[in-house]
């Protein structure tokens, strides 16, 4: 039983800075919860409060069925990967990983087995005798990860555990963590995992649910797909997705019974479904949002009900895809296209960009809430 519940949790740092403004969150037993949010939004702070490393200046944190506000970290049944690693500089990689197990009086041979196994998975078997000083950044980070992985706590706390690894390794580590999660579940000792990341791919692929934080407040808690497809507010819409959603000023207008959205570069007809949602806002200014992949360059596309003409400023080639940055009526848009499909787009020239409006979002300017959900 290791559900983690935060009740109006607040945190004010000694220097007076209020980092967390009342967070309510329920993480189910065995759930994989990802925290995302801009740098400085209090992801680490929240994690550290769950770990018991920071005093909570308001509210309560429950782990399992007890309030842990006054419980020491070591009694909370947690393991943690620190954002700054916090490796013991005087210990070898092996001992860094073994330390927690030694503290819980795990038999030597089991320690050895677990550490070596973890080291194998983390591809740091050769480094077990080295001290942190003699390792590369990524290697250190893996030791820090290993230190948590070898243990079997109720709750795992990961604070950007893969940030310094290369793409390949990230993928395999990611898989490794997920496997661990599955395995523990299968063994009947499910571990709750809270995972802080700034990597969208990790967030989308790993989390059962994702908590989006901003400036010490929760913006939305939902499954990855819902976050991507149904952002509840402007912040989430802009934050999730890379490159991020195009968000431009717009206005809802009605012409001849039909509802249009007027944005820089064009007035686009809204499909019925969307029109319904925003009819009450006719005549008002809103934020209009569309994901880059929902913009089609220079082609008549069946899904596109309207277009905008823009001049291409930059084309970024990513290998499997291309980002096209274009300018329409002084506003910058970005489109994400398949290089195969749009072979002859050139910088500096003007093209028509079709908008898949069935996928668009509109946000109230004041409440910042998504009107189109």
């Amino acid at each position: 039983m290791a559900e983690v519940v935060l009740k109006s949790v607040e945190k004010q740092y000694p220097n007076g800075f209020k980092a967390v403004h009342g967070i309510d969150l329920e993480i189910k037993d065995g759930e994989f919860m990802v925290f995302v949010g801009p740098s400085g939004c209090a992801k680490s702070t929240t994690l550290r409060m769950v770990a018991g490393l920071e005093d909570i200046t308001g509210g309560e944190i429950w782990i399992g069925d007890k309030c842990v506000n006054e419980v020491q970290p070591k009694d909370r049944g947690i393991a943690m990967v620190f954002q700054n690693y916090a490796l013991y500089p005087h210990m070898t990689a092996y001992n860094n990983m073994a330390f927690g197990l030694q503290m819980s009086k795990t038999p030597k041979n089991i320690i050895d087995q677990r550490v070596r196994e973890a080291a194998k998975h983390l591809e740091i078997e050769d480094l077990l005798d080295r001290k942190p000083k003699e390792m590369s950044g990524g290697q250190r980070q893996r030791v820090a990860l290993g230190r948590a992985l070898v243990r079997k706590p109720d709750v795992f706390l990961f604070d950007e555990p893969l940030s310094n690894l290369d793409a390949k390794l990230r993928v395999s580590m990611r898989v490794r963590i997920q496997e661990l999660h599955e395995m523990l579940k299968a063994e009947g000792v499910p571990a709750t995992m809270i995972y802080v990341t700034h990597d969208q791919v990790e967030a989308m692929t790993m989390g059962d649910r994702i908590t989006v934080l901003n400036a010490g407040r929760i913006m939305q808690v939902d499954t990855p797909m819902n976050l991507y497809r149904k952002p509840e507010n402007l912040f989430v819409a802009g934050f999730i997705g890379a490159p991020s959603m195009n968000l431009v000023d717009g206005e809802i207008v009605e012409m001849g019974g039909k509802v249009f959205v007027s944005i820089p570069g064009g007035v686009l007809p809204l499909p019925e479904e969307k029109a319904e949602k925003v009819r009450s806002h006719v005549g008002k200014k809103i934020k209009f949002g569309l994901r880059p992949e929902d913009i089609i360059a220079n082609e008549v596309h069946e899904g596109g009900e309207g277009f905008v003409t823009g001049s291409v400023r930059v084309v970024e080639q990513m290998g499997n895809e291309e980002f096209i940055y274009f300018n329409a009526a002084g506003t910058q848009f970005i489109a994400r296209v398949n290089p195969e499909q749009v072979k002859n787009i050139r910088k500096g020239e003007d093209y028509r960009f079709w908008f898949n409006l069935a996928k668009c979002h509109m946000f109230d300017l004041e409440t910042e809430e998504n009107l189109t959900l």
Partner: protein
Amino acid sequence: MNEQDRKKLIAENDLRLRKRLARRNGINSGLRYFVLTFVGLLMLYPLIWLLGASFKSNAEIFTSIGFLPSSFDFSGYVNGWKTSTEYTFTTYFINTFKIVIPKVIVTVISVTLTAYGFARFKIPGKKFLFSILIATLLLPNLVLRIPQYIMFNSFNWLDSYKPLIVPSAFAVDAFFVFMVIQFMRGIPKDLEEAATIDGCNSIQVLTKILMPILKPALISVALFQFMWTMNDFLGPLIYISSVRKYPVSIALKMSMDASALVHWNQVIALSVIALVPSLVVFFLAQRHFVDGITSSGIKG
């Protein structure tokens, strides 16, 4: 938020934290304070006793461990300050500072430089030189006294403060050098690397980066040198012959003759006064022991 609000907030916050902490540690911290206070009293008692004794009669001083004198009489302080010499204690205090202050300054500088050289650079024959550094610590300096006297005499330095100060400018206090070396070796080089990239030459690395980080250690050096110099008796006694140049440590013992009558309350009153600078300096200096490097600037 204006400054006042902010301060208030911080204060409140602090209080809340404290309470929380107190609650959490409950008995634990109560016990801690009890032990600290009890043992602390043991540590402090001599000072308290000394204070009381400065008002006592000779007989009372040597027969009573209690600190309350039977009557309060400030004459010990008044007469003591006047002294039986041509000068008052003021002179001796000034003299002391004339020795202590330059000595502390040159010690910190020379020690830091030398330690830096040893801790951070490749030096031909470093191992050997370091052994010598350590070796200079090991010979009982009792037997060095006479040769040193002869040496300083040949420099024509007698009856001046030079023998007391100048050697310190050349890092002869190996104790401190070794100490700072050890501290430096515990500090990760990453920050120094950043500083060299930022365009620091090695001396700037030392002054701008290492020294601030080493503050607790350097303050300890200054502190020790201050106190030990304040207390040093034999050095000044041997090298200084003019009474007007005497420091406090000698002045304190001016009126103590083996056979003559000694007004112990005066002697003690002066000892109490002589302790004040050290006390104050210690109290002020140790506040700087708040935060060490905590290496928060470095990841890993």
